[in-house]
């Protein structure tokens, strides 16, 4: 049985009010994995921010898990995003004053969820960074950072996971590893995964593709 988790219609965005970015309609079912391909400057990141509710579109609508996110108040959108959408950014950002474990706890707390240390520990272990849970994030390697940010995107059991160029800074080995983990984890959580990238290496790995 299929269930539409992520859907857009006639989505348009403009930074200056003159030049409009036109986005193709997207329709992703629960548990599916998609690749959104496009060259630099084609508006990939803008689209991802629109989908993640970090920006409001000029036109069109975005439905996530049955909710029209454009119509949520900004506070409600903040809460909705925290609970339903996990985002993996190109560069892994963290709250630097906190440890790996505390960063994940903060993510649960800010989304209004109960702290679930067992789940945090399980995620970190599955992503092979379980031994780093007491480290400050600045002491992690690039690959470890990316894996911790995947764990953070998953920690609230979101229905949609958005990943913005998650592999661009990684070598082939780490690239495959990160994609494998993203796929595996989103499957396990039965979440929809959308990866925005210009990384040609990923075309081989994920068959559902949208070109911008």
């Amino acid at each position, binding site marked *: 049985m299929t269930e539409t988790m992520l859907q857009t219609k006639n989505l348009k965005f403009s930074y200056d009010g003159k030049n409009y970015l036109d986005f193709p309609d997207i329709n992703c079912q629960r548990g599916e994995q998609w690749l959104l391909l496009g060259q630099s400057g084609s508006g990939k990141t803008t689209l991802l*921010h629109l989908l993640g509710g*970090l*920006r409001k579109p000029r036109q069109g609508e975005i439905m996530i898990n049955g909710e029209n996110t454009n119509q949520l108040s900004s506070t409600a959108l*903040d809460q909705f*995003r925290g609970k339903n959408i996990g985002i993996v950014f*190109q560069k892994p*950002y963290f709250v630097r004053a906190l440890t790996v474990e505390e960063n994940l706890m*903060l993510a649960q707390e800010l*989304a209004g969820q109960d702290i679930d240390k067992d789940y945090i520990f399980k995620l970190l272990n599955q992503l092979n960074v379980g031994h780093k849970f007491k480290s400050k994030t600045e002491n992690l390697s690039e690959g470890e950072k990316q894996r911790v940010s995947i764990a953070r995107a998953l920690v609230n059991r979101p229905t949609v996971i958005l990943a913005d160029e998650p592999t661009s800074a990684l070598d082939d080995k780490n690239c495959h590893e990160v994609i494998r983990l993203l796929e595996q984890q989103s499957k396990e959580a039965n979440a929809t995964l959308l990866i925005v990238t210009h990384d040609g290496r990923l075309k081989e790995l994920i068959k559902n593709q949208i070109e911008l």
Partner: protein
Amino acid sequence: MNNIKLAWKNLTNKPLNMMLSLVLFALGVGMISMIFLIENQVQEKFDKNLAGISLVIGAKGSPLQMILCNMYHVDDPTGNVKIKDVKPFLSGRNPLIDKAIPLSLGDSYKGFRIVGTTQDYPELYDVKTAKGKIWKDNFEANIGADVAKIANLKIGDTFYSTHGFLSDGMNGHEHGQFKVVGIFQKSNSVIDQLILTTTQSIWEVHDNHDHEEEALVEESTDNHEGHDHAEGDDHAHDHNHEGHDHAASQKPLIEEVDQEITSILIKFKESSKKSFQALTMLRGINENTEVMAASPAIELNRLYDNMSLGESFLRNLAMIIVFVSGLSIFISLFSSLRDRKYELALMRVMGATPTKLFFLIILEGLLLAVIGYVIGIILSHLGMSVFAGQMEDKYHYSFTAAKFLKEEFYLLGGALFIGFVAAVIPAYQAFRTDISQTLTES
């Protein structure tokens, strides 16, 4: 993890920035609180020792000096006055006067002043003996609680007075031998620091002293007399004491018209305190007699005015330091915000509302202010304990570091206000964080 914990972790992540803000803040708060503490305790000491005294009468000189010397025992006497010049005040016939207490100063023991006076003096401060009895005969002495403790004197002990107020006794040789007959209870008044005896004892010590000096001068011309005194010492003293004791008990103080005392403390009757005659008495004495009168209330106000000049300078300096520390909190939050803008955007992504970020930054400012305040208060009380030690050494006045004032509590309000104001602009910036823009800037 609550906001306070998160704010704390953010602050301690940049320990050097935090230190700078804290040191400045603590310095400012500490200075202000220290000024409060000293001012409060000095005034309290002065006020407590007022003891209802309306006038002090003594030799002409500086009125403030006379007050400080005769009421607080921290300055030298302005000189002595002859009994005949002050007889009208001592006679007990003046209808305005409730009590007129003669004081004779000039000698000390281990830096504690020996005061020749009457039994009215301790009563003025409502001080009773804790041990022993009130002195009655010449060369009997009652000692204050601090004297007993520091000079280690007990009932029945004897000691020799030293001429002058210096504790090292270099100024004169030991002369009168006194016997401790009573020890006063601790009262936190000036009595704690004094040795009280009869006025006549002081006269006698000084008569002897004068004789001895004369004797030394005359030694070459009159061998016999000189020999007598030089040989005498204890013997001669003891002998003299007995003789004079006898004489003193027969002749009231007021009839020793040619003897001298240092001052008289005047306490008006309650009923006549505000009367026209009482109010004009000071001027009358100063204009029409050879002695001087001074009002402790007026002189103290003058002293406070002088003190407040220095105080207001220090207070302004402290305010400037507090202002600069507020600025430093502002700069440190502002610059840390620059470093942390991705974090803040990230927190928004994770579900934090703008208001949450606003209060997080405000909390960081408040936390700095509170910690700075606590360190400042600790510093000021440490400083106060050093100051108290020095005052104790120098003036035998005891201050305490353990006393906390309500002003210090108000200071906390001020500190919180400064912390808030310093944080409000950075917090507003955090509030306005544009997630998407911030995250695409990288």
